[in-house]
């Protein structure tokens, strides 16, 4: 393994490591545009030039492998001068429209300019005009004038997605990124093109002109879009002054995890967050009065729910109660649900497996057919197979054998259709706990508003059996509560139930009681998750 010196610090790295990567290991950042850790190296942008002792010229650190006893300098006047010159060339035709550019604040060109150049432009001629607002695909827009032609987007399509649909047309200062005339990018990974773009050339339609990047707060999360469990970062703010009323979450970006999603995120997951702030969010508990719902408070709604369940159990026994939880809920939510129904009320009919849960359209890269983040977790917690199946429960609701049905985030009408609608409308007591209004919610007698994945702490178990943590970024909308908290409050009214104050307390109990979670804690899960079981069959 070669040992080299970079800026007077010694480092030993694997054979074949590039200078740029070795420097990164020492915490020395070398500026670059075309280099991307997950794409082939093309040394096109010349931004990463460094000085190597005894080398006749500056070398590109992104593509040159280290050698034993190499001596590298990343901040000599020669290097600084080169960076300044490269930036001057790149900025000759750049429109300098940072004040209206969505990338401003997180743009490498902007950052490098202030760090390595900061000189006024000496260019006096007219800039080359290129295409603006090019509709490259359904999800993003190209501004060719901002482009530095690093080619990352072209390589992403070719190497990661395996579809060669972007190219660099014309040449020299007229070079432009584009699709073949008349064609558009249609793949499910367009958001990553915006991510890999080091400048403001590719911007997401979903994010354009909505919020300045520096107003956004960030929290680590897990994409709830499917069972793959891609690691993500949620960007949110309460003070976007662009006046998008009520929008708190603005985007999801990928977080690196080599075992799960590398450094990518699919469009379905990335832009699936809109339900968090959508107009159909359930924000207050509600009770059905005649045909309509009337807003209630938690006390009334929980009293109604508790007394309703109690009556049914006392009169007809626990087999007259059915529970259909959703694998959208966290392990903590599901464990709290299990404690309540299985331990306190002795209900056996708990099944999350609605037919067709895993019948979405998946792809080869990340997206899974099962569009639920915690199916494996629900399996490991034994929320299926203890009593009647979800489908059988619907039948029994229809015949009146099951009198009370508790839908925890699940929407049977969505999966079973009319048959479910008919059954649900016959239930004596239908409780819907969830985040958004749905066809099943419409038929409920009591509505209990739950928190979304960005409004609560908890864990998901992805299809591989990897336990990963989500974090609370925002307070639940309106009066909504985390689902485990709803079960805790309900539990108190129904019998001996632990008084959980936070999700971590639920997790501690779960770690003690449920085998795959034994000995685990939030600290042990860490930012990259931990494998606790095999993949589901």
């Amino acid at each position: 393994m070669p040992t080299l010196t970079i800026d007077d610090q010694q480092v030993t790295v694997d054979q074949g490591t590039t200078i740029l990567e070795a420097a990164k290991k020492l915490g020395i950042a070398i500026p670059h545009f075309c280099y991307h850790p997950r794409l082939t190296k093309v040394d096109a942008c010349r931004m990463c030039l460094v000085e190597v002792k005894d080398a006749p010229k500056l070398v590109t650190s992104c593509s040159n492998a280290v050698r034993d006893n190499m001596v590298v300098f990343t901040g000599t006047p020669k290097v600084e001068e080169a960076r300044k010159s490269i930036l001057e060339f790149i900025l000759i035709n750049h429109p300098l429209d940072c004040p209206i550019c969505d990338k401003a604040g997180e743009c490498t060109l902007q950052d490098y300019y202030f760090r390595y150049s900061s000189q006024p432009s000496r260019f006096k001629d007219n800039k080359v005009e290129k295409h603006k607002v090019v509709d490259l695909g359904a999800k993003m827009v190209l501004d060719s004038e901002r482009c530095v032609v690093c080619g990352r987007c072209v390589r992403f399509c070719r190497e990661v997605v395996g579809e060669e649909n972007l190219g660099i047309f014309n040449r020299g200062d007229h070079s432009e990124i584009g699709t073949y005339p008349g064609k558009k990018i249609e793949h499910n990974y367009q958001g990553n093109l915006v991510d890999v773009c080091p400048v403001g050339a590719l911007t997401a339609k979903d994010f354009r002109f909505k919020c300045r990047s520096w107003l956004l707060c960030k929290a680590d999360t897990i994409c709830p879009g499917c069972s793959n469990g891609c690691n993500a970062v949620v960007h949110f703010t309460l003070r976007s002054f662009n006046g998008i009323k009520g929008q708190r979450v603005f985007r999801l970006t990928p977080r690196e995890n080599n075992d799960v999603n590398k450094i990518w995120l699919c469009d379905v997951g990335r832009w699936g967050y809109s339900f968090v702030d959508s107009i159909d969010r359930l924000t207050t508990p509600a009770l059905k009065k005649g045909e309509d719902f009337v807003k209630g408070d938690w006390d009334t709604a929980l009293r109604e729910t508790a007394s309703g369940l109690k009556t049914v159990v006392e009169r007809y026994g626990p087999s007259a109660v059915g529970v259909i939880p959703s694998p959208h809920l966290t392990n903590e939510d599901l464990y709290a649900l299990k404690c309540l129904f299985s331990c306190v009320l002795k209900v056996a009919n708990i099944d999350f497996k609605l037919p067709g849960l895993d019948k979405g359209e998946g792809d080869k890269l990340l997206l899974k057919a099962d569009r639920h983040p915690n199916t494996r977790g629900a399996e490991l917690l034994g929320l299926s197979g203890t009593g009647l199946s979800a489908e059988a429960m619907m039948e029994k609701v229809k015949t009146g054998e099951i009198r009370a049905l508790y839908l925890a985030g699940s929407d049977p009408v969505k999966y079973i259709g009319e048959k479910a609608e008919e059954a649900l409308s016959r239930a004596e007591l239908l409780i819907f706990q969830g985040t958004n209004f749905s066809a099943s919610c419409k038929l409920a007698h009591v509505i209990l508003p739950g928190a979304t994945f960005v409004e609560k702490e908890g864990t998901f178990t992805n299809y591989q059996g990897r336990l990963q943590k989500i974090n609370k970024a925002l307070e639940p909308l309106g009066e909504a509560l985390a689902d485990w908290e709803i079960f805790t409050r309900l539990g108190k009214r129904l019998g001996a139930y632990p008084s959980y104050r936070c999700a971590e307390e639920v997790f501690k109990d779960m770690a003690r009681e449920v085998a795959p979670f034994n000995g685990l804690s939030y600290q042990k899960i860490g930012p990259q998750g931990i494998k606790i079981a095999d993949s589901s069959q």
Partner: protein
Amino acid sequence: MAVAFSEKTKERFKAILAKYPEKGAALLPAMWLAQKEFSVITPEVEEYVAKLLGVPLVRVHEVLTFYTMYAAKPLGKYHLQLCTNISCTLLGAEDILEHLKDKLQIGAGETTPDKKFTLSTVECLGYCGTAPVLQVNDDFHENLTTKKVDELLAKLK
């Protein structure tokens, strides 16, 4: 697909392919063959070449737009390429360009309505010693003066 190489061109294409370790590497000569055959590289021709070589369509378009000698738009019967690089300009290429524009009533990069002439300005053709120079299709005309241009145009039918 309407376009296809003639049998003779297909033979030449095969001979070209044999020179390269992989098909995609023959993109430039294949496009040149296509231009000779079809005189202009239309989207149909791009698609034909892409299929022949098994390369993505977008890569054919990259090459087409990168090189100036491939014609994406139909050219006139005579393609007049006037060098406007240093030597030619110093020896009067600008006057010749104005003269050509006047005579043909078109600008640089345009084709006459009768599709006879296309006028282009190009960079150095390597004939600095006999500048100014005009390339007409594959022939070079050196030491040009406006008078010589008139004589030349009269000959081109």
